């Protein structure tokens, strides 16, 4: 696969710069980017506040619909960011992230179902679907789910452990490229079938819905929604900063090297397994958390979230925004889902054409996504004018729009890491 990727042969030029490499670690973001980020966060944070505290007749009032929609998009953005860590930076294309997303959602949903109490349609201690399916008591895997903290542990550990175990075996036998993608797709397909079964104990077809309250607060109240929104925003921001720190670290360099020249990385003595496994598991956990934040805001989780098309849609968020960048997936999730919301409400029959075209056009004409396009237009050369572009960050002599598979990144990373180890 490596040989087929476009390469920029710069090794000779690089050698002369080797000694002068290892620059003082630059700031996480450049000043303009910081400003932009903080401004965006403040604007986004104002949205629920304008919803709750400004009277509905005021011009500044933001509708609850908009708050819910933006909250949903931010959850998607977290998932996209998680996917980008494995695809954009490590070169592992997962078509099964919808499964981790839904698992996180289901884990949180279990708590929310139990928080309904006896207010369901059947006024039973059991959730409605269990009464309907003639359960006499909670199945064993529902134990402790009445505690919110326990469900939060599930949100982290269920996707995490599943990803770790699956990833361990997959990466150990060096399954990669499309094989890995196809297998993850099969996995989410299998999970979907499993959750569709009534006997699995997660509500079958209908999944979980009709939540009443979270931690004692009514779940539909404006203030609860505002808090959920703000938590999501905070988590998205934290994820962005954390991911930026990760990809800028030496560890991140190795990840990029895995993406660009895995064999070479192994030959110089790295065990790629643990690097891949770490980022894969981290990504699954982030995705699970995104799902957990998503469920109370949307009010429903069902096995449809695990369907293969959903997971591929996540990939296109990343591709549209720009993989291998960190802002890109966030933009992509917003743009594609904004388009989806707009089209499915106004021209429902056009939506699939549009989505299909986005897939085709982005892969053919925008391999670096919107961020790449933007970068091309700006033609800036400074190292860290843009967030996270590995090519841009690594070498100023390559054009900012260096294709994936930029050799110099891998080489620099390897040299860097090897040098520090010996």
């Amino acid at each position, binding site marked *: 696969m490596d040989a087929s990727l476009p390469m920029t042969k710069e090794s000779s030029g690089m050698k002369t710069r080797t000694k002068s490499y290892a620059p003082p670690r630059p700031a996480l973001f450049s000043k303009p980017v910081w400003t932009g980020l903080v401004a965006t966060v403040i604007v986004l944070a104002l949205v629920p506040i304008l919803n709750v505290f400004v009277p509905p007749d005021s011009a500044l009032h933001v509708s609850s619909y908009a708050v819910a929609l933006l909250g949903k998009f931010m959850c998607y953005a977290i998932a996209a960011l998680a996917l980008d860590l494995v695809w954009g930076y490590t070169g592992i294309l997962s078509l099964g992230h919808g499964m981790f997303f839904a698992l996180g959602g289901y884990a949180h949903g279990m708590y929310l179902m139990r928080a309904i109490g006896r207010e369901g349609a059947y006024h039973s201690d059991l959730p409605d679907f269990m009464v309907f399916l003639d359960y006499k008591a909670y199945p064993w895997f529902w134990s402790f789910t009445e505690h919110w903290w326990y469900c939060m542990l599930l949100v982290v550990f269920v996707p995490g452990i599943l990803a770790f175990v699956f990833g361990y075996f997959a990466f150990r036998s*060096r399954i990669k490229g*499309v094989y890995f993608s196809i297998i993850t797709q099969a996995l989410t397909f299998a999970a979907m079938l499993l959750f569709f079964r009534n006997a699995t104990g997660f509500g079958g077809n209908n999944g979980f819905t009709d939540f009443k309250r979270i931690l004692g607060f009514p779940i539909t109240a404006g203030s609860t929604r505002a808090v959920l929104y703000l938590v999501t925003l905070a988590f998205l921001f934290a994820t962005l900063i954390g991911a930026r720190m990760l990809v800028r670290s030496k560890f991140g360099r190795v990840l990029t090297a895995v993406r660009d020249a895995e064999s070479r990385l192994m030959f110089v003595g790295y065990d790629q397994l643990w690097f891949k496994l770490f980022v894969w598991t981290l990504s699954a956990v982030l995705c699970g958390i995104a799902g957990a934040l998503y469920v109370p805001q949307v009010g429903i989780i069902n096995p449809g979230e695990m369907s293969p098309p959903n997971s591929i849609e996540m990939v296109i968020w990343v591709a549209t925004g720009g993989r291998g960048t960190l802002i890109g997936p966030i933009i992509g999730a917003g743009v594609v889902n904004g388009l989806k919301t707009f089209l499915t409400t106004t021209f429902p029959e056009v939506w699939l*054409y549009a989505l299909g075209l986005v897939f085709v056009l982005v892969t053919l004409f925008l391999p670096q996504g919107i961020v790449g396009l933007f970068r091309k237009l700006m033609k800036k050369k400074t190292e860290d004018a843009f967030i996270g572009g590995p090519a841009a960050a690594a070498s100023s002599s390559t054009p900012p729009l260096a294709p994936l598979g930029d050799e110099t990144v891998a080489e620099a990373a390897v040299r860097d890491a090897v040098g520090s180890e010996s």
Partner: protein
Amino acid sequence: MKSPTPYRWIVRLRCLALCVAWTMFAMPAMAALDADLVKPLGSDDSDQKVAAIAKLGTLATPEAIALLKALRDETVYVTAEGRVLVVDADSNAVDPITDEKLALPDGSDNIVINNRLRGALDAADSGLQLLSPEVAKRRAAAHALEQEADPAQLPLLQRALAKETDAEARESLVLTTSALELKSPDPALRRTAAERLSESSSASVRPLLAALAEPDAQGHYAEPDPQVRSAAAISLRAVNGRVTRAEYLGNAFYGISLASILLLAALGLAITFGLMGIINMAHGELLMIGAYSTYLVQSVFRQFFPAAIEWYLLAAVPVAFIVASLIGMALERSVIRWLYGRPLETLLATWGISLILQQAVRSLFGAQNVEVSNPAWMSGGITIMGGVVVAWNRIMIIGFAALVLLLVWILLNRTRLGLFVRAVTQNRRMADCVGVPTGRVDMLTFGLGSGIAGLGGVALSQLGNVGPDLGQSYIVDSFMVVVLGGVGQLAGTVIAAIGLGEVNKFLEPVAGAVLGKIIILVVIVLFIQKRPQGLFALKGRSVD
């Protein structure tokens, strides 16, 4: 029994003809009928009439049959004093009890056959069919009685069973008779019935026998007589063994059938993915296009060649191949060509194409499933080992899959195009150097793979629903087949398809359809961890 009404009519007409024939033979020797049987026909009470008809039906002597026929023809009269007389064609009245001929007395009333009596006559008729000299009629009657046997018909059934020589009709009669006899109050009769059932191989007798042989939840036996119980237990064991063997055979057949479907769905993919390395996520949609082509050809035949509608499927095969391969080649030239060597991007782009194709079909044909019918020569099936129905369409599709496989093999290994395809697969640059038009070969190969998907679509249209989502349900399965079989190997694909088909069908009864499928997916995922190259890996020394 999809349409009872026309079927009944046929039975009735046949019965009529039969009765006419029998009456002719029986007329001269018309012996007397019992007065107890005939008298109630003249009463005013419908219940008595119905009972009398049923009794006449089970009696099934030529005289009784003649009287039933006369009743149906409304040529039976009741005199003022309640005597029942049959009026023949010459307007002579005959007393069926004494065979005495006389003129019809005044004041006689015709016995009117209302719907209730007609129903009773029909029931009696279907019982009488059991004694027909024609095997087909006896079989049909025996099968019909399996559904709706009346205890009053037991004597008739027993007589029919004693005479029956045809295996199929006998099997069915054994079942019905024994089921009735098992309910009889006579322990000896119950025991004979239980013993007789041991020769059955139908799964439906198992609950009957089990009810006798095994205690219920409280430990009580429904059957008081221990001898009957042990006879039932012995029979149950025999039946169980036979049924298990039949099920085994049935599973094996359905496994092969599923394998042929998987093979047709995956064969095209084995070429585009296996040989060319293109991840074509729109492969499922090419299957769907094949199925819709079949639908279109069917519509054209309905419109223009209604006489040849039975054979539309033969025309659909080349049409589906051409349509799917043209669409495939157009895709290759317009999109996929630019993405060679970037498999992940190809995956995304072709996924986009699949969405567009799906929506296009939805816009053109509507979101609902369209109706594609089985031609007569593909519907129905043959029953083997009493209970395993081997459907013709499945047999045809197995044959079709084998044929397509053979053609693909010949094309790849015995033709110039196949040589080029293999050359380009093995060493593109070298092939280019010696003058192989690699670009065109790519296009043709992709067209071939897509065309085969179209052929798969024709087969799928004969088995299930044809709708815009048709392809979606096969995409994961087909990739699993190719990945499991090992990329670049036709033999691997075939063996993987057969293996998956069989494992699936043998798991289904144990684990349920959905859980079985999940287990298989998980097993494949685990298997790939162990052997990333699939079952049949090409030996080589390259690293990536």
